[in-house]
């Protein structure tokens, strides 16, 4: 066996092609992506530093310091963090449950999680408005319990946005945690029980710490996704629930302030990059004391 420089293992027959016969297969994709993606992003970055045709940085501080921007930025962070954590709390027991099921049961649960995942966000937002709205079933049910005056507004506000985001993030936490749980060596829990631990203790001392890296990965992933959210805050949020994504739209469409829009986009990108770097710092994100591979 020979391992090439890129880590691909090949048999003794190293098929060393004459000068790159596979390059032509790749060129079209490279060309399209460079043209339609890389170039626009570079152009956006350049645009962020261009105001009224002039290249410079003077126009940047006013935008960043404006109340609008700061509200949007903090909303983005808060929404993302709240939703990611709540989704983690909600998804974890679901993952635990799925890990205890047999092959078929687990597949069923996975399909049930994937179906809404692939449904259009607009359909989901629309449904949530109907369900959580003033005449919706949920509110009606709560009103029946606590009286219609005391029932909280669940939509067109901060709560609504968080609920919608949690709904979207659950799969991003469910699958990594499930994968981790399935990979854990069952004998570790067994050992804990043998030593007298209760079910909860075994979980808290053994299972949960081992699954922690995957929870972190899921939270960071969800947070990164939330940064660019554009549709959800506008549909199920209130007037003050502006995020960076909404702000970009506002600058582009309403005020035609493209530099401000690009600036917001850069801030968004940078935040995402920082999170990705943070993710690589999560210890043991990839490797854990796992079942021996037989």
């Amino acid at each position, binding site marked *: 066996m020979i391992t090439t420089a*890129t880590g*691909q293992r090949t048999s003794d027959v190293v*098929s060393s092609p004459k000068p*790159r*016969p*596979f*390059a032509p*297969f*790749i060129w*079209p*994709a*490279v060309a*399209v*992506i460079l043209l339609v*993606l890389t170039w*626009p*992003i570079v*152009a*956006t970055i350049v645009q962020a530093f261009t105001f009224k045709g002039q290249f410079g940085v003077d126009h940047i501080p006013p935008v960043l310091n404006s109340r609008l921007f700061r509200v949007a930025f903090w909303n983005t962070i808060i929404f993302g963090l709240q939703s990611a954590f709540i989704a983690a709390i*909600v*998804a974890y*027991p*679901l993952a*635990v*449950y799925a890990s*205890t099921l*047999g092959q078929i049961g687990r597949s069923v649960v996975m399909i*049930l*999680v994937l*179906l*809404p995942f*692939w*449904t*259009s966000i*607009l*359909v*989901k937002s*629309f*449904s*949530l408005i*109907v*369900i959580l709205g003033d*005449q919706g079933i949920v509110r009606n049910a709560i009103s029946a319990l606590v009286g219609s005056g005391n029932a909280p507004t669940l939509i067109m506000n901060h709560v609504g946005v968080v609920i919608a985001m949690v*709904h979207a993030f*659950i799969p991003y936490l469910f699958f990594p945690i499930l994968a981790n749980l399935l990979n854990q060596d069952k004998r570790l829990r067994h050992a804990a029980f043998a030593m007298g631990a209760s*079910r909860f203790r075994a979980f808290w001392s053994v299972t949960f710490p081992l699954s922690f890296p995957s929870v972190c990965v899921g939270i960071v992933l969800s947070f*990164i996704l939330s940064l*660019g959210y*554009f*549709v959800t805050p506008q*549909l199920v949020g209130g007037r003050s629930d502006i995020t960076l*994504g909404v702000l*970009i*739209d506002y600058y*582009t469409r309403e005020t035609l302030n493209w530099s401000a829009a*690009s600036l917001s*986009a850069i801030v*968004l*990108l940078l935040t995402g990059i920082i999170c*990705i770097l943070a993710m690589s710092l999560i210890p043991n994100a990839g490797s854990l004391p796992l079942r021996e591979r037989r």
Partner: protein
Amino acid sequence: MSTKLFKASWTTTLFSWSVLAFLLLPTLIVIPLSFGDPVELVFPPPVWSVRIYNQLWADAAWLNSATLSLRIGLASTVLATCIAVPAAYGLYRSSSAIRQLVYGLFMTPAVVPVVVLALGIYLYFVRIGLVGREVGLVVAHAVYAFPFVFAAVLSGMKDVDQNLERAAHVMGASHFYAFIHIVLPLLARSITAGALFAFLMSFDETVIAYFLASTEMTTLPVRMFQSVRWDSTPILAAVSTLLTVLSFAICMVAGIGLARKSKPS
């Protein structure tokens, strides 16, 4: 052999099913809603009828948006597949030093937030006059869906035995001939699954379509977006139901296709 130790407690079970209900409810509730009152959306619907659907069929704007989304979806899927399949094949087989770099480039559309992508493409297309043009949206969606098709085909390449290509070469076939006649048929399942999901992604895609929209070119999701914000017509329920059915159908077809593939014949 599952012992009591490894079964979930009843609280966990109950909670889990509640979560699943929470996940599925918004997706499923549009179905009964769409068969209800054409004036005001209320659950449970007081009357059952198909009048909302009749409204939909009669509404040219909505139908145009639907057909537009269909056109864009098909075209962008074709484009994405045409560049992604050879790219995945070429990258998998190549031993070049910049392999990782190219892989990173290919994954960029999936890593960048959609709104940043949409803004960049918008600013760029404005200058070259592609805003509001179908061609522009097709290309943008193709790039958006590209990483997905690419990843699907790349994982399918594991099952393509390189010896088959070598055999074809010895017998006189060029790399391209072998790719078309030997590799593609073996990748059929991965390509189909990738293409199906790429179509769904394009069909549901809102942000880029919104940025590139014009009054003549509003895709279905964009029209829905505007409708939810401004007029909230009950037609939304019908459209949502149809979209949900479409999503479910594609998931089922692709899922079954992939499941059969992983079974050794």
